């Protein structure tokens, strides 16, 4: 029986990726390929009054211009959270209505990229404009409490345990603070790209996605097609980070154009248009109240939050699902509201709720530590738990205290002096050390897998899952290689292909915990099939067994699901709909955990913040692919750094839209910003969640990093910055640390 830690193996698709041979959607380059370009709305809200496309149609090389007048019969794919497939219910170009600046108003298709882009610039529109609002400080009618709303109340009602307000009122030591998290854009480096073509009445779409099943079923709904007539290929996404987790608005436009022109159409959405044409992390504001006794036992926590949504969809928040469970706080009240703004519907950007909630809650924990004059690590250790505070169920595994202890040891936390601005370099540079924790639901989805072994030595696994760079191919190869006792490099992994297996959304850190158990179960079934050919078979290359038996190949299929899920989830899987369980399971609650330790250096005159090092220790259950897992944690630390110190999508209250919509003005971390990042894993399996003991990693590793950095800035300067990103103007308010 295979068991124990997995070896650190190279990323299985790295050989292709370093040669530029890995194929992304827009890499489909063929002689007959036509190219699309979008023209977009120049106002934030209103109606198109006139749309002049004649100059565009007359431009050289142009084959087709589509507007809302050419889209008869096309429907919305429906909102992901409303039984549909798309990131928003609103499909642009089905009517003259404009709901946000940058919304597509026309698609130009031409022989070349250059001709299409030029012609798109010739599309002219006039509008009847309507007032809009973009602020969290919205009128009352634009604010919707999730509790009591039409949203499923099992998930979105207030999170209540005990009597938080009563316990808070009675607490000896209190913190009451409000924190702001800005809109941000995921900006995967791969632009939103689609190649659509029709062959014998079947629509074939190539698009980097985390949810090829939703793209398939979304297109089928939009175009009135049998889903059997839609194939979606997404062998890899060039980064996704939640922005590619559902059906996009531009995809159907390429499909309609390809049908009209009877030719493949490639539509690459520009970087600037991607800021407006796809989902983003919404702005949110968090009021956190903590009440504790003088020994640091937290008696009450109240977390109230407002989050931006669009006018056409209710995109709810799940901030308090995590903060209610981060510590053993018996009296908790979480309350969330949605604020309607005139934007495209926001969505899930990496650790969509856990990151902003973690910044707020873990900053408040640091404030409480200072109010108590208690070491911030000791405060967290004093509030550990083995029971889920919301349900009273046991936690399937929780090693957060060990993450804190190991992290503190690796970081050298014991050498920290408690007082702010007490650690200063000779040149006046202020040194700050901060700590924060993170948690993230450990969830899982159903998965279907087909495993085939061939007499020529090949082994092929097709499974529900998507490769966005997190390393799911490598994790699958590692698990299957161990199960079959073969070299992982001999296994071909097919993911993100609706022809090969029904595809479920890969997001929410459940990808590996859902796909690898399916692969492992398929491996076990393949061993049984091989034993029926050769009773003596006990692992190793299946090819020899097949050759001896005179068989060209053998194939097995399995379908797996999360603990407690009914068989009905397989219908949802087949229908391209999400079917996710967690963190609550019938007999337990499962979370992943992380502890982060960060050092900042604040330059005495400019107040520039540099980050020399971050230590992160993660409890994600069994680590099935150590090398890619370490990379994912390093990337998550950099995402935390970006969120803490760099990233904000600036909105324009006068004209709408996001004004810094490119990679020069939307500032992301670069090589020169990146610190030494020391990564540790607890690597203890959680066998209650699945046979391999895998929890989730990609998001918990980011959750709390921004708070650790903000807490370090406070330690360096004495300044408590409660609004991200932390910028020089906030820090210049403080007197410079005096050189000693």
């Amino acid at each position, binding site marked *: 029986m295979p068991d124990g830690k997995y070896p650190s193996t190279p990323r299985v698709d790295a050989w292709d990726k370093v040669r530029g041979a890995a194929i992304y959607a827009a890499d489909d380059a063929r002689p007959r390929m036509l190219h699309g370009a979008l023209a977009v709305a120049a106002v934030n809200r209103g109606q198109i009054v006139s749309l002049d496309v004649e100059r565009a149609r007359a431009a050289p090389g142009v084959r087709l211009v589509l507007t809302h007048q050419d889209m008869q019969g096309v429907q919305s794919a429906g909102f992901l959270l409303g039984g549909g497939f798309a990131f928003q219910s609103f499909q642009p170009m089905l009517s003259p209505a404009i709901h946000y600046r940058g919304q597509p108003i026309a698609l130009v298709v031409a022989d*070349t990229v*250059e*001709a299409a882009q030029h012609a798109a610039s010739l599309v002219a529109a006039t509008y009847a404009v309507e007032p809009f609002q973009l602020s969290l400080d919205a009128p009352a009618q634009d604010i919707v409490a999730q509790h009591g709303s039409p949203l499923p109340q099992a998930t979105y009602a207030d999170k209540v345990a005990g009597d938080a307000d009563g316990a808070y009122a009675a607490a000896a030591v209190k913190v009451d603070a409000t924190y702001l998290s800005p809109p941000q854009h995921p900006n995967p480096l791969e632009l939103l790209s689609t190649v659509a073509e029709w062959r014998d009445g079947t629509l074939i779409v190539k698009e980097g996605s985390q949810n090829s099943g939703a793209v398939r079923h979304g297109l089928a709904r939009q175009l009135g097609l049998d889903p059997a007539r839609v194939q979606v290929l997404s062998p890899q*996404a060039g980064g996704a980070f939640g922005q590619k987790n559902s059906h996009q608005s531009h995809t159907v436009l390429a499909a309609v154009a390809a049908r009209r022109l*009877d030719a493949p159409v490639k539509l690459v959405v520009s970087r600037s248009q991607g800021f407006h044409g796809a989902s983003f992390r919404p702005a949110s504001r968090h009021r956190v109240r903590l009440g504790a006794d003088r020994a640091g036992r937290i008696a009450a926590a109240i977390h109230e939050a407002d989050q931006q949504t669009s006018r056409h969809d209710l995109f709810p928040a799940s901030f308090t699902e995590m903060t209610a469970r981060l510590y053993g706080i018996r009296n908790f009240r979480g309350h969330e509201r949605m604020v309607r703004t005139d934007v495209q519907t926001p969505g899930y950007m990496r650790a969509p709720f856990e990151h902003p909630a973690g910044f707020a809650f873990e900053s408040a924990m640091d404030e409480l530590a200072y109010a108590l004059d208690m070491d911030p690590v000791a405060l967290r250790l004093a509030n550990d738990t083995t029971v889920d505070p919301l349900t009273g169920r046991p936690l399937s595994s929780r090693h957060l205290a060990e993450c804190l202890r190991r992290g503190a040891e690796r970081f050298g936390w014991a050498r920290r002096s408690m007082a702010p601005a007490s650690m200063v370099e000779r040149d006046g540079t202020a040194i700050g050390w901060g700590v924060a924790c993170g948690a993230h639901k450990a969830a899982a989805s159903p998965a279907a897998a087909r495993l085939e072994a061939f007499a020529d030595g090949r082994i092929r696994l097709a499974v529900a899952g998507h490769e966005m*760079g997190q390393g799911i191919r490598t994790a699958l190869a590692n698990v299957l290689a161990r199960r079959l006792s073969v070299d992982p490099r001999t296994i071909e992994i097919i993911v993100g292909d609706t022809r090969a297996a029904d595809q479920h959304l890969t997001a929410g850190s459940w990808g590996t915990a859902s796909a690898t158990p399916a692969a492992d179960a398929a491996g076990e079934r393949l061993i049984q099939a091989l034993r029926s050919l050769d009773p003596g078979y006990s692992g190793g290359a299946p090819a020899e067994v097949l050759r001896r038996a005179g068989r060209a190949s053998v194939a097995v299929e399995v379908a797996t699901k999360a603990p407690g899920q009914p068989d009905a989830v397989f219908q949802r899987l087949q229908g391209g709909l999400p079917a996710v369980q967690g963190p609550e399971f019938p007999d337990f609650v499962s979370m992943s955990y992380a502890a982060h330790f960060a050092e900042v250096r604040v330059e005495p005159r400019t107040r520039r913040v540099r980050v020399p090092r971050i230590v992160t220790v993660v409890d994600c259950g069994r680590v099935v692919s150590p090398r890619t897992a370490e990379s994912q944690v390093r990337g998550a630390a950099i995402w935390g750094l970006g969120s803490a110190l760099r990233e904000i999508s600036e909105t324009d209250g006068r004209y709408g839209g996001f004004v810094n919509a490119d990679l020069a003005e939307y500032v992301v971390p670069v090589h020169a910003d990146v610190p030494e990042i020391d990564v540790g894993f607890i690597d203890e399996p959680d066998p209650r969640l699945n046979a391999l003991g895998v929890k989730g990693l990609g998001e918990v590793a980011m959750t709390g990093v921004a708070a650790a950095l903000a807490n370090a800035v406070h330690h360096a300067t004495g300044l408590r910055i409660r609004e991200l990103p932390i910028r020089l103007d906030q820090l210049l308010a403080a007197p410079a640390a005096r050189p000693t």
Partner: protein
Amino acid sequence: MSDAEGDCGTQGLPHPNRREVIAAGISLPVVAGVASGIAQPASTPAPERIPLRVTINDAPYELSLDPRTSALDMLREQLSLTGAKKGCDHGQCGACTIHVDGRRVVSCLTPALQLEGRQVVTIEGLAPSSGELHPMQQAFIDHDGLQCGYCTPGQIMSAVACVREGHAGSADQIREYMSGNLCRCGAYAGIVAAIQQAAPRMGG
């Protein structure tokens, strides 16, 4: 290190389907108006096409181009050399980095016609042969200097140039001189380690 010679890639084998690809690239402009049922309004003449002679990965090309074409779109859409990626089209991300006469440039900001008479090397031409890897490519695998892989061709082309320029003397110097290449997944630490491994193995 002889950065002027651009020694890596000059022995690169031709792309397998190069002739077909060239033919396809040249024939592109004459296929206008073949789709049935689509009204074609009287159109103004297309921009004059301009000839270009360029050597790419050691193979000579003779092309006829729309002068608006970027080097990146020429490589990708006309020559099917899709290793160089479009991440911004504004010279802000570095995913499209190629070598022109041994120097790294962002191909999205380089008009294709500016390549007249130049020696271009792309990620496809970096390895000494199709079964081998350049030491920098191997180092990226060894240090997992990639995740989604989209920025990787640009990072590797930039990294090779960074070493040849003499800007790989320390981790800090590498970070400074690689900061034009964004990696949104955050594989930066592995990339710097890879460059440190590959630099002494790249020879002179």
